[in-house]
């Protein structure tokens, strides 16, 4: 299984009437995570978040694919 680039947010067992809701739930939580943090603290929080998620994903081929996309066109 390669990197999933389709919308993949949701909670098990929850039915969403509007397709955008789980993505918006995630995005709000992400912005909320940074509330009251300084810019430096936010950089640290983002770094930690990436490390935690990378470990959870684990599969290095998926991670390499994501890292390649993340660098593109900057």
């Amino acid at each position, binding site marked *: 299984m390669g990197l999933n680039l389709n919308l993949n947010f949701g909670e098990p067992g929850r039915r969403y009437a509007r397709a955008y809701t789980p*993505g918006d739930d995630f995005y709000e939580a992400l912005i909320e995570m940074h509330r009251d943090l300084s810019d430096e603290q936010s950089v640290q929080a983002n770094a930690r978040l990436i490390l935690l998620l990378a470990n959870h994903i684990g599969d290095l081929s998926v991670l390499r694919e994501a890292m390649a996309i993340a660098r593109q066109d900057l």
Partner: protein
Amino acid sequence: MLSTYQYQKFEYRPPRELGSGTPVRHPVVVVGAGPVGLAAAIDLAQQNVPVLLLDDDDTVSVGSRGVCYAKRALEVLDRLGVGQPCVDKGVSWNVGRTFFRSEEVYSFNLLPQPDHHRPGMINLQQYYLEEFMVKRAQALPSLDLRFRNKVVSVRVGDDGVALQVETPDGTYPVEADWLIVADGARSSIRRMMGLEAEGKIFMDRFLIADVVMKADFPAERWFWFDPPFHPGQSVLLHHQADNVWRIDFQLGWDADPEEEKRPERVIPRIRAMLGEEHEFELEWVSVYTFQCRRMGKFRHGRALFVGDAAHQVSPFGARGANSGIQDTDNLIWKLRLVMEGRAPDRLLDTYSDERTYAADENLLNSTRSTDFITPKTKTSLAFRNAVLGLARHYPFARALVNSGRLSVPAILADSPLNTPDEAAFAGDMVPGSACDDSPMRAQVDHFWLLERLGNRFQLLVYVDKPGDVAQADALQALMSGPLPVDVILVTPAGGRSPHGFRVFEDYTGRFAERYDARPGSAWLIRPDQHVAARWRVVDAKRVRQALARATCNPE
């Protein structure tokens, strides 16, 4: 001021109560003749409930203000008899495009499904909507619409409401059994009652310019993040009737509203956006800020708050007027049943429960859009731009782009008025949802399902053939009594009912598809076209129980 619209002054007539000193008691007084107050008054009057509608002004909304009217609001306006002129005059659109800097990153289509009467959204200047509604209101004998009648005091008691109303010829007292408060975001009734709407103000300013131009842009919603012609901010373009285009520029909190409204400032901004080749005329300019807030509850005894007086949202998503019109859709049938003694008073509490739930959904979605459109920190701006950058190539990021989640009806799935499902159904028509439309036929007569729903409880029974009705006698008995249920057979076959029921032929199969219908299935529909209950096997006793539940009556 406006070159495309001629403002009509509505006639003020001195009220006959002036000078008599004795207040006349009205069953219902509605304060505020904007779209929401007009909707409430028309809904009551067309059901023969006498209603007095007071407005402090004598014209329609100045400037185009509200622009987008969504499918559900149009369906309510259809029920009120003003949907067609709105759709005829308005610009229908379904496609929205989103641009980041100079590239398109994402587009959506509001209504990918065929066979709906109304489009996903129309754009129409608010003054046209109000004009059509005033015309309808003035044609209703039970509706007394008084312009330049300003409520200057209000006292809400246990069994009624007392008002003082100021006119150019003096002040007079009015009494009412019920008061519907539709006097807008700065509701003076709310203030006089010492009530508040709580929430937050957004630290940003927006410039609205309505311009007249002949341009061959398609009828679509275009939204720019950080465009070259307005760097660092957002811009929205909408097409309205009469070749009027709405342009909305984000300005930032530090902008000076008076300075920004000057044509010398506005015209170069628009020219930068449209290019030199398009000639245009400025029609209306305004600078606004907005708040997201609502009252704790929308019912205070005999006073019922609707629309912006009860709740305010950011404009992103068109959830203001659309939700206000849905407030009245929810309220009026309940008020009528309570007034007629056919339902207990606490049915009106469910107006507040259901519509505060809907308001919270609107507030949540419009706040999220606002946070995406106007990031407040370096980090949120970085995420926002990362989403937009990825959206060009990757579907998951497109779904995160949030330039407004456009108004759709709240699904009142947790409402205590619903009867929970006992059997499995697929699809969206869960109890608490607004009914989906579908084409129907009866003999040679073609119509839309929603044109025949509303204003009373109805039971749709799906059958293979019109003769295949279980419990025909018991279902017929539902059609009489204090809370009659209008029973309609829906069938793929057409034909006549040997039991005398009305028959709708689902000749496209859309009803069966959208409602997940099987022979024997039935749906109890509320007077506001919401599903109250559904069954795989119709049973008159259960219908009566669900009807009692949907009206707060004892089962």
